[in-house]
């Protein structure tokens, strides 16, 4: 992937320098490889960085994703922005507490964040302050823990909800009951 060498990464270097000079030392910028920059930012500086990058020509809001670091008790929110001019993805990453912490919404900067934030809210239970409609998105009538959290056990949920206990047991205990070939009842 790095075949073209480091010499051609002028854009990346430039953006890194600009972000660092504008936002100071609290923001850490890594060039991961060509076309990819990762920015680790504290929560209160994330939106200013997004606004700054949009002004710099990062028009495309490619992705907003969330990673559940359950051991650290944190959610990592990753805003993935892209500029057609620089041909660079900037992944702005920030950490918030798993419980009782919300994130200000980014829809005033990027309209496209609207549905991504709805999805993250539904799947992880992250609150986005100021979002007009954080309701049902993909799931309907969902009760209980948001499913994408690491402590949600989908197999236990399935066993309880769908009345298929025999089936899941069969799959879980396959090691003890080796397959004896066609025709056998084992």
């Amino acid at each position: 992937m790095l075949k073209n060498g480091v010499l051609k990464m002028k854009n990346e270097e430039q953006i890194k320098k600009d972000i660092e000079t504008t936002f100071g030392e609290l923001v850490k910028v890594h060039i991961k490889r060509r076309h990819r920059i990762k920015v680790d930012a504290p929560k209160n500086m994330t939106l200013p960085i997004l606004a700054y990058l949009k002004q710099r020509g990062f028009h495309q809001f490619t992705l907003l994703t969330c990673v559940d670091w359950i051991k650290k008790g944190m959610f990592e929110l990753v805003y993935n922005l892209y500029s057609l001019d620089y041909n660079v993805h900037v992944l702005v990453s920030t950490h918030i507490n798993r419980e009782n912490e919300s994130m200000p919404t980014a829809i005033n900067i990027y309209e496209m964040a609207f549905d991504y934030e709805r999805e993250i809210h539904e799947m992880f239970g992250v609150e986005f302050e100021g979002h007009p409609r954080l309701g049902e998105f993909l799931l309907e009538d969902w009760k209980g823990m948001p499913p994408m959290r690491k402590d949600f056990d989908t197999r236990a949920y399935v066993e309880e909800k769908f009345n298929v206990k025999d089936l899941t047991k069969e799959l879980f205990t396959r090691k003890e009951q080796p397959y004896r070939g066609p025709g056998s009842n084992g």
Partner: protein
Amino acid sequence: MKLFNFSQSRSLWMMHFCTGCGAMEMPPTMTSRFDMERFGIIPMATPRQSDLLLITGYLTIKTLKRVVRAYEQMPTPRYVLGFGSCTINGGMYWDSYNVIKKLELYIPVDIYINGCMPRPEAIIDAFLKLREMIAKGEANAWKKYIENYEWYKKNQSEVFDVEKWSIKNEK
């Protein structure tokens, strides 16, 4: 009666409802290579006009609500074809929190095709089998639904709120 069974078996209108990825093999089955229409099977736009409901693959809970409604809107006799492994036991999605596992628990199924996804040949084979069953008067799963209505409703209520999603509550 016999004449009706015969004409019913030769003219199956299926509902145009792609519930899952199995719907991907429907276009080849419908179109010039496999040409489903030569058996009198054509897609229809609304449940009122159709006889055959294809559950093409996995059903999420959200789709199941719509499927049950569409199924109840279809005029009897109506037939259900379970399509792919996902309708039999969940298939690839056996541990997914949003996909139902056994279709039989929620609506009666006349015939299943296994495989993920079934080939067009398998689909046509199933259609021919269903046609035979109808002509003999054996495809009576729709009667099961009427007779065991309570049982199906009970199963449905385990995965979603039946009251909220019944047709009666619409306006």
